[in-house]
């Protein structure tokens, strides 16, 4: 037990550790990121995008309505243990919002959020059921959930085939990271398979075997599915693309979720990956005034970790969009509460009343960057539109127009899932937060 002395010393050291002085008129946002570990390949670009947009606002406008945003990154390495640590740290420093950027970490912090009064922004990842604002007042997953994404993939396939009824008798392979993230869409896929009479074949890829997928793809070769759907992340994506090429799977029948659409993922296959498709919900490219501001103010002056040629890539823009949502939520919260320096509780109200219209997008220099986004007290995700992009050998090209998910299919399932979550985690607190408009 003597070690407690040491523990005590460490603790004295910790308590004495100077927290960054909360300067007048500033708010603190922690970004849980991962620039290390097996998922760094995807994580780095997201982290860059998130940090750059907020820092750009600080540089260009002096923050949001004169309130500076203190941005700090916390390295999770996509590891749930470290994620909890980052969350506790964020809590101790009064973060406005917590971005886990990992479905595993999101699941862990969901129950804590309501108690600690910290909103969780899990942009198009995490628990799909969290879209239900009445059950999960503190969790936000705009612009849509994985389940919306899964229906998006199916409706795209149906479109290719010429109608939803054509799905009947088809075989669709689903290769996924065998973790919470990859398993999340399965209930919906199974339900849809039942309804439309197609078969869904699962190919789980264990995290440890991410770079060793030959067995899964051999099975794909044997089963000859008509379409392949991938739910991969990090090192799993480029390996899957390479393996698909190896077994000569037709790439235009290989469709990924938005997280499988990193430039590096497709680039691994080079020209052979031509035709590979993924979902997306924001534009790719740096041709937006706001991103040009990032370039001018941060990248060109060396204040950013982003390399100039990676500006505007898919995952970078994903991170940027994440920060746009946060910035807009802060602004909304400021308007509603009339305060300049808002708290995390105000931030929740802001996130709940997001209304990013096309006019607003134009104002912030991101016209056409994404579909307009709107959230409400009940609806924390919003089932917004997406599109399919295709790899042309060098870059992503927008293939389809914006189209909505099959909201009518997803909604009842979401409600059911939220209810299930509530019962299995009983006593789950009822929503106590008033709906502020």
């Amino acid at each position, binding site marked *: *037990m*003597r*070690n*407690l*002395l*040491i*523990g*005590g010393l*460490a*603790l*004295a*050291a*910790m*308590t004495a*550790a100077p927290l960054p002085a909360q300067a007048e008129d500033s708010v603190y946002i922690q970004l849980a*990121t*991962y*620039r*290390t570990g097996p998922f760094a390949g995807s994580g780095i670009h997201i982290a860059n995008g998130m940090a750059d947009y907020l820092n750009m606002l600080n540089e260009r406008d002096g923050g949001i309505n004169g309130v500076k945003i203190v941005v700090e*990154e*916390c*390295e999770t*390495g996509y*590891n*749930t*243990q470290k994620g*909890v*640590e980052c969350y*506790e*740290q964020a*809590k*101790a420093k009064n973060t406005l919002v917590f971005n886990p950027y990992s*479905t*595993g970490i999101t*699941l*862990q*912090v*969901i*129950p*804590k*959020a*309501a*108690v*600690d009064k910290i909103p969780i922004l899990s942009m198009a990842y995490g*628990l799909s*059921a969290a879209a239900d604002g009445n059950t999960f007042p503190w969790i936000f997953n705009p612009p849509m959930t994985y389940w919306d994404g899964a229906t998006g993939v199916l409706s795209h396939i149906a479109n290719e085939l010429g109608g939803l009824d054509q799905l009947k008798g088809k075989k669709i392979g689903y290769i996924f990271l*065998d*973790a*919470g993230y990859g*398993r999340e869409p*399965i*209930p919906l896929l199974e339900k849809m398979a039942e309804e439309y009479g197609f078969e869904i074949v699962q190919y789980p890829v*264990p*995290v*440890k075997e991410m770079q060793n997928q030959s067995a899964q793809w051999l099975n794909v070769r044997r089963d000859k599915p008509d379409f392949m759907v991938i739910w991969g992340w990090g090192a799993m994506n480029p390996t899957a693309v390479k393996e698909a090429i190896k077994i000569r799977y037709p790439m235009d029948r290989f469709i990924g979720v938005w997280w499988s659409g990193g430039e590096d993922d497709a680039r691994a296959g080079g020209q052979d990956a031509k035709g590979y498709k993924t979902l997306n919900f924001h534009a790719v490219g740096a041709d937006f005034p706001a991103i040009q501001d990032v370039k001018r103010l941060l990248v060109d002056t060396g204040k950013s970790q982003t390399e100039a040629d990676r500006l505007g890539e898919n995952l970078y823009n994903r991170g940027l969009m994440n920060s746009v949502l946060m910035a807009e939520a802060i602004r909304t919260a400021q308007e509603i509460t009339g305060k300049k320096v808002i708290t995390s509780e105000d931030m929740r109200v802001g996130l709940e009343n997001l209304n990013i219209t096309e006019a607003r997008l134009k104002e912030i220099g991101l016209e056409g960057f994404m579909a307009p986004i709107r959230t409400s007290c009940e609806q924390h995700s919003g089932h917004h539109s997406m599109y399919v992009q295709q790899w042309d050998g060098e870059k992503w090209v927008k293939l389809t127009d914006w189209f909505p998910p099959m909201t009518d299919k997803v909604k009842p399932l979401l409600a059911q899932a939220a209810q*299930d979550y509530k019962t*299995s*985690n*009983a*006593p789950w607190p009822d929503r106590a937060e008033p709906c502020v408009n």
Partner: protein
Amino acid sequence: MYYREAGQFKTSYKTDQAILPLREDRIGLMLSLVMAVVVVPLVSNDFVLASIMIPFLILALATIGLNVLTGYAGQLSLGTGAFMGVGAYACYKLTTIFPDVNIIVHILVSGLFAAAVGMIFGLPSLRIKGLYLAVTTLAAQFFLEWCFIRIPWLYNYNASGAIEVPERRGFGDLILTGPAADPLTRYFVVLAIVIVFTLAVKNLVRGRIGRQWMMIRDMDIAAELMGVRPLVAKLSAFAVSSYICGVAGAMFVFFYLGAAEPDAFSITLSFQILFMVILGGLGSLHGSFFGAAFIWCLPIVLRTWLPAIGIDLGAETVFHIAQLVIGALIIFFLIVEPHGLARLWQLAKEKLRVWPFPYG
């Protein structure tokens, strides 16, 4: 492995057989207990309690568990993480099936499941030794990890595949687990369990069974010739060790993480615990605490302090440097004192005893 310290002469068997024969040790223990029970809760904020003290204590318990197996019985295991996982999943199942029973009871019972699994995977130890055994325990690690993913019954068919800690009350209406549980409450529960277990293990290892383990460790064939049954000794070591690890695993999820994916019990955790054992000192209980404190707190302290002392770096650079430093420190400590921090502590005591007039 350690020599008895001389200097204080005992006049009765009772004092001679005390848990801590030295008066200074007893005082030290009392001081640390006071520190843990009174000072720590008074001076620390929620972050220190929730992110440092609670996981540190739980990991220290897991370290004690592995120490029983590796330090006392000499059987190297790389499957600690998975055994902790068994405890955690068992506890989750128990508390969802019997929600009204006090969670502490569930935690203690869930260790039994881990013990059973541990004994099954301990069977090869009767034939396989040393590093070969270590690699076979990896079979347990990977197989169990796969079970946590592939057997949906274990996580109640949750869509997410994760186990989530429900709110449980006990001792009146105190919230013990779940998000609403106060870090202070959790800290005291964890502390109590850890103290009780440490005391129990201390008595176990100085008793008959503990001595058998050590005989097996030091030379199994000789021990067998002297009448120690390897089957009983080895399997009991696996059982006790896995039981403690299972309890630690259940606490890890219920009092610290709050929810867990199978990933939480990966091989990384096994290595982390093994490091704590080795750095703290094989076959030393207080060493287990040293090791846990070192491995758990150092990265946090490094990450907090590197930026604080004016080295302003990106989060990931700090992370890299922390990793560099930890790797180097592990090698450094192994070179300086392969018997771990516990041995360093003992050497320090020996130096102090003759201070200020060292002889020889």
